[in-house]
């Protein structure tokens, strides 16, 4: 006969429920009288529950972080691990339908040491929707993925981990270039209706979400327009053929907004496009902020362009994301997952790869905007990281004297992500100066 363990008087007579904070033992563990079994959270404080007798933990009825009725049996201490009979144990006292009823959960012995393989119920693998989507786009079989969650459900992090271990031969079938889609480029609008407009152009293999560190602040005082380039974000997939065609598409999207005196901000390829836009619409552009802009020299990291556009798994994407920044800690699993989720569409990756080959054939930038830089009429700043491994920051040195240069030490290709406060300060000062 096993001894049922409850919170007893510790729970306090006025408490309906308590929260289990942490289990200190697992099923099968031998305990001595006075050993701490678990920690619970009462209305007042966290309290340790000790073993009233020696024995073996034969069952655990509630998982950590769950809320259970104050009187619930939390675990059993038996003579051995099969001793699970106890007084009141025959008829479960669980009231069905009440949210506070404890779920009876069999916690595997030594659960922390060995992650359970994904629970499979009637032939179906338990996985979160996000994990399913990530696995499907990465071509990973969920049956081979271990679930690290106590819920037994495969989560995003498990798929990300598995994709890094996936054997090389499990590559996906190459995806054909999708048929050209029609329709205007997507422009995301946010911010105030009245403030001076800000127009943002992202870089290659990125999308309008990459402006998050800047746009949420700019939106407080400005009407913010974030463009998605063709084959990126929510814009149509279609092949642009040349840089000049791409400039025309961007200009059409810009003209359609009918903005007067917009502050234009571009990053990388978007920087080159912003420069080209200012060159052809000088009266419509009030100021120009170029973050690591393209078009100021022939060199570009061709491996990066090809690699990031092609990356079909979180693991390979992570490697290229780390090339973009100097501080490697910025590329944490959450960042990789978010970036990968945005690139889960295989057709989008195929379309971007092709676009990359068009614009950056032979690892060379097919467009030169050095002359446009000399012709600029509006106040302009160039922000560039001296640790940029995608484009050479020395391209900025061609700028004429009236263009302000901010060459940031220990920053890579994405100043707005790596030095967000400084980047925002530069942009804000530029806008104010107009």
């Amino acid at each position, binding site marked *: 006969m096993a001894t049922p363990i409850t919170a007893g008087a510790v729970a306090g007579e*006025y*408490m*309906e*429920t308590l*929260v289990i904070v942490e289990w200190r033992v697992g099923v099968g563990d031998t305990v001595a009288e006075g050993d701490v079994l678990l920690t619970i*959270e009462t*209305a007042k404080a966290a309290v340790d529950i000790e073993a009233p007798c020696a024995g073996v933990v034969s069952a655990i009825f509630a998982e*950590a*972080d*769950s*809320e259970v009725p104050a009187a619930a049996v939390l675990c059993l201490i038996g003579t051995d691990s099969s001793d699970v009979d106890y007084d009141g144990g025959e008829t479960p006292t669980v009231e069905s339908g*009440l*949210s*506070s009823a404890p779920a009876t959960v069999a916690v595997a012995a030594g659960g922390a040491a060995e992650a359970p393989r994904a629970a499979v119920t009637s032939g179906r693998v338990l996985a*979160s*929707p*996000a*994990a*399913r*989507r990530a696995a499907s786009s990465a071509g990973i079989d969920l049956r081979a993925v271990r679930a690290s*969650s*106590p*819920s037994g*459900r495969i*989560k*995003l992090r498990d798929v990300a981990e598995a994709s890094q271990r996936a054997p090389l031969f499990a590559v996906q079938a190459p995806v054909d270039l999708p048929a050209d889609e029609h329709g205007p480029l997507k422009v995301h609008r946010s911010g105030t209706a009245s403030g001076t407009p800000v127009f943002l152009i992202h870089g290659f293999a990125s999308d309008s979400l990459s402006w998050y560190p800047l746009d*949420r602040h700019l939106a407080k005082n400005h009407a913010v327009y974030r463009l998605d380039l063709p084959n990126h974000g929510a814009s149509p997939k279609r092949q642009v053929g040349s840089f000049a065609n791409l400039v025309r598409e961007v200009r059409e999207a810009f003209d359609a907004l009918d903005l007067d005196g917009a502050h234009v901000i571009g990053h990388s390829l978007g920087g080159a496009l912003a420069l080209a836009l200012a060159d052809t619409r000088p009266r419509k552009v009030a100021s120009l902020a170029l973050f690591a802009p393209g078009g100021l020299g022939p060199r570009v990291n061709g491996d990066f362009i090809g690699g990031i556009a092609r990356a079909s798994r979180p693991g390979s994407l992570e490697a290229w994301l780390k090339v973009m920044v100097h501080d490697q800690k910025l590329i944490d699993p*959450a*960042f990789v*997952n*978010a970036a990968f*989720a945005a690139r889960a569409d295989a057709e989008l990756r195929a379309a971007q790869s092709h676009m990359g080959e068009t614009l950056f054939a032979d690892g060379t930038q097919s467009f030169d905007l050095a002359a446009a830089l000399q012709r600029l009429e509006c106040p302009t700043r160039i922000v560039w990281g001296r640790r940029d491994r995608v484009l050479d920051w020395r391209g900025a040195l061609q700028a004429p004297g009236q263009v302000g240069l901010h060459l940031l030490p220990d920053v890579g290709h994405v100043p707005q992500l790596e030095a967000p406060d400084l980047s925002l300060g530069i942009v804000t000062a530029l806008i104010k100066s107009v």
Partner: protein
Amino acid sequence: MTLMRYAEALNAALREEMQRDASVFLFGEDIGRYGGVFKVSKDLRDEFGDARVRDTPISEQALTAMAVTAAMSGTRPVLEIMYADFLPLSLDALVNQASVFTYLWEGQVDIPFVLRTQGGGGVGTGAQHAKSLDAMVCHIPGIKVVAPATPADAKGLLKSAIRDRQPVVFLEHKLLYNTRGEVPDGDEVLVPIGKAKTVVEGKHVSIFASSKMVIEAENAARLLAKDGIEAEVIDLRTLRPLDLDAIRQSIAKTNHAVVVNEGWTFCGYASELSATIMEHCFDDLDAPVARVAMPDMAIPYSEPLEMAVLPNAVKIAAAAKKALA
């Protein structure tokens, strides 16, 4: 910016809108001579007279019907129902009149009135004076429902509500009236209805809350931060219409959602939010949406018992950790 209490911010909004628009008038129990039991209408009767700040007998049903018809006849009434617990007495006027008249008369009438009330527990006022019946009013199409958490939002949203063409139920919380916060100066600073606000940024789990639960959610984020978990707290501000874009954007980033509401769990506002997230963000979810709400029971009169059953920061943090496990 001016440092104001929540009640003072509401008072300022009422005063400014009454000065701006002569058709705005107030009525309710004890709001005139006494200035309202929570002092929201303090001194307004002295300034605007008893024709525009009217004390009424106790009949929520008659008062709400009166607000509807006054709104139809070209005024902009602001009705105070002293306790949200008595919203059920107002329901016929909301469900069968205010929300449908514009439709029944093919758009020939607007119903621009505001029903202000306050709910919520935490001060031992028992089962009839501490409820959060958000879901009951949010269930009605054609009624907007807002529930601000800060003095700035209280002022900006009340001004927007008074100017709105549709009926707006304005939910306050008795424990917020004395909270202080910076309020932007200026008679034309409005907070739009239907826009949520990110009050804490994070990347691991999104916590959606409104009214006083925003403070609990912010405290939960602090608790979680001690364990290295970066929670994002979204103040919904408007309960209906819902700011779906803000919800989508946050979950696309965090993949985990905890929804918090002080009302009952079953068929509650948290349930609606949970179902909406499931429909619109399913593929972004890495764990089931967690609800933190009031258990399905009467609110105990005993304060310790009341504290045990109300949603709080510890319960929110526990739900977030479970989702992330």
